[in-house]
């Protein structure tokens, strides 16, 4: 036993898979110790806030601040003027201001802005310059103006008695605050989701729930598959025929479909996390049954089993002492795969709206489902679903690696 475990950990594939899996598991348990926010707290008031640190606007404005001799206009210009805007400016300068193309360098923002300021005439009338286009150019000019401005912003307070506005503070273009001075801030490493929840915290909680679903589904599937496979393989005859017929049936009829039918039928009220795990487990046993059965059949006529039979041992005793120990490695491998496919099944089920009907906990599938329903994939809010996809892929990658590693240890002919 000790030797086998040693051998297993010598397999590079198993080790890599094991490390990834343990890391994921560790994060699930350690993260909540340090970040104690409620994972489903709706903290953001809108959909999909970008990842980053959010500091209190008021506090930042009222903060004493520091003066840094750093002109912010240039970087503001760079953000205001994308490739499209620069091309528009170039087009205008060539077509309507009569500047030769060779004199314009689109890559030099500063130079082109300078040219623009010298040559742009908002009242220009020319052939082909429709009013829509003219308006577009005006908007462009305004945004350039805005970006170039460095005169500062005045903050006013309303006088409680007279209702007059009184200048309270001027914020200059060169005014900066140190984020450390600001007390009210929160970092969303992965932004927020459609409900305004912190994606990272939610993701950690969801991973934990999904792993639990996978584990329960895997346990159920393995238990059912193991029992059916043992009975079919050991008893043989009619029993074997019936079990194999059912197994083949449920291999050909996609389990995904049965999963949908059952999940829909149990109704939203009954469909909690446990129920979903249970249903997934009950629909994914055929694989295990198949492999356990073939293993048992090859063991059934071995000498040590025959010896036990001749000694008059009971069927249970033979199964437990002469068969189970030999197929234990297969069962473990099958279970590892079942866990991984259970997690995937939950995700797919949730994506078509048949996942756990709950708002109390998140699962990886539900996070995916919410993100898709709020079109995160169409409006570029990658942080709401990419991390989920990566976590699912990593979990299943690590479990599969472990499975391959075990396979190579226990089936040496597969070693290459």
């Amino acid at each position, binding site marked *: 036993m000790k030797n086998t475990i040693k051998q297993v950990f010598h397999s590079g594939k198993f080790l890599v898979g094991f490390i990834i899996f343990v890391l994921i598991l560790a994060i699930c348990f350690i993260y909540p110790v340090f970040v104690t926010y409620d994972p489903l707290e709706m903290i953001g008031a809108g959909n999909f806030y970008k990842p980053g640190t959010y500091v209190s606007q008021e506090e930042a404005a009222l903060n004493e601040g520091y003066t840094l001799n750093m002109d912010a206009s240039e970087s503001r210009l760079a953000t205001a003027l994308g490739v499209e805007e620069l091309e528009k400016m170039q087009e205008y300068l060539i077509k309507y201001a009569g500047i030769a193309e060779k004199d314009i360098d689109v890559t030099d923002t500063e130079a082109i802005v300078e040219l623009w300021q010298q040559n742009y005439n908002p009242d220009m009338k020319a052939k082909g310059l429709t009013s829509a286009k003219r308006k577009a150019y005006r908007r462009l000019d305004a945004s350039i103006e805005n970006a170039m401005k460095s005169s500062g912003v005045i903050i006013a307070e309303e006088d409680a008695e007279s209702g007059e506005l009184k200048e309270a503070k001027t914020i200059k273009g060169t005014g900066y605050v140190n984020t450390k001075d600001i007390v009210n801030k929160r970092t969303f490493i992965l932004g927020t989701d459609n409900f305004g929840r912190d994606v990272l915290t939610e993701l950690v909680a969801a991973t934990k729930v999904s792993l639990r679903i996978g584990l329960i589904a895997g346990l159920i599937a393995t238990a059912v598959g193991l029992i059916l496979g043992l009975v079919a393989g050991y008893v043989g005859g009619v029993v074997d025929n019936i079990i194999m017929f059912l197994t*083949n*049936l449920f*291999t*050909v*009829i*996609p*389990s*995904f*479909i*049965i999963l*949908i*039918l*059952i999940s*829909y*039928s*149990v*109704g*939203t009220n*009954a469909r909690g996390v446990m129920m979903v795990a249970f249903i997934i487990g009950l629909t994914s046993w055929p694989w295990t049954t198949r492999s356990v059965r073939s293993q048992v059949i090859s063991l059934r006529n071995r000498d040590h089993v025959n010896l036990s039979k001749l000694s008059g041992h009971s069927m249970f005793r033979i199964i437990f002492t002469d068969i189970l120990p030999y197929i234990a490695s297969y069962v473990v491998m099958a279970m590892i795969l079942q866990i*991984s*496919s259970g997690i*995937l099944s939950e*995700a*797919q089920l949730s*994506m*078509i*709206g*048949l996942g756990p009907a709950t708002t109390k906990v998140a699962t990886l599938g539900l996070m*995916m489902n919410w993100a*898709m329903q709020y079109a995160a*994939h*169409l409006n*570029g809010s*990658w942080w709401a*679903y*990419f991390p989920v*996809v*990566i976590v*699912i*892929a*990593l979990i*299943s*990658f690590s479990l*599969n*690696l472990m499975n391959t590693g075990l396979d190579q240890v226990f089936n040496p002919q*597969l070693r*290459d």
Partner: protein
Amino acid sequence: MKGYKKYYGQKLFWYLLTLIFAVILNFVLPRLMPGDPVSAIAARAVGGMTDSTAIQKVINDYVEKFGINKPMYQQFFMWLGNVLKGDFGVSFSQYPRPVSDIINSAVWWTVALQLPAIIVGWLLGNILGAIAAYIRGVFDKAILPFFLFVSNIPAFGMATILLFVFSIKLGIAPASGGYGYDLIPNVSWTFVKSVIGHYQLPFWSIVLITIGGQAIGMRSMSIYELNADYVKYSRFLGIKDSKIVGYVFRNAMLPQITGLALSLGTMIGGALVAEIIFSYPGLGTTLLTAVTGQDYPLLSACTLIITIMVLIANLVVELLYGVIDPRVKANQQD
């Protein structure tokens, strides 16, 4: 020849039996549960939805067609009779469209998407796996872990990745639908072009997923075959290496066909969910509509059609396998 006939006969019989079972399951499973279709329909009516007259009409239609008040076995045969006529009732969510009409328009999108995607992915995966097995070394060491990882990304995950890169960031492919939203299906060039454009992302996400798994399986199969005795013997008879590689890959590929048959259901399930990401007008998206719209008739028809599709695909693969691999024939003669 006799061996083949026996093989085909058995296969056909078995699939017929499976089909009957699948049909029964499709009918019985929802009715065994507390939320059976009848109460689901009743709940809709009582819930006082927006268009209560419409819902009432659907219920009447359903009760009449499917004999809800009759005993279960009578219901089953009525339901079966209607299904055989292609009549699945009227949809709740898209009233008054008949379910068969919705299915009919969705099913071809799915077939046209998944069939070529799975075949192309299978072929490319096998070729890549074979190359990895033959070349080994650095290529193998670098490519294999990559494919191992890729094959573990769920189909919908791959779909979101492709969507993000090619549609949102690069803007070179449309993000959703089966054709431009401003078009009405017809046979004009614009429409066909739009369909082809919309086809790319769903197609490649299924292909990429399929490639990963197949490449890994093919690689280990090929390595096993490359060490087979017949390889050495053929070499010593002076047969060219390129020809021998041909033998090896053919032999390695045959078990991959069985593998395909076994995993077809899982693959199609994953691909259906990937459709949803692109709002592709196929069965996957229809399933989602049915679930969100609490549209029982539509859902039940969807699951039945998908099951039948998977069964047919499996049958075709197995029959094909019987023709290609002489080992099957040899087994039948024993």
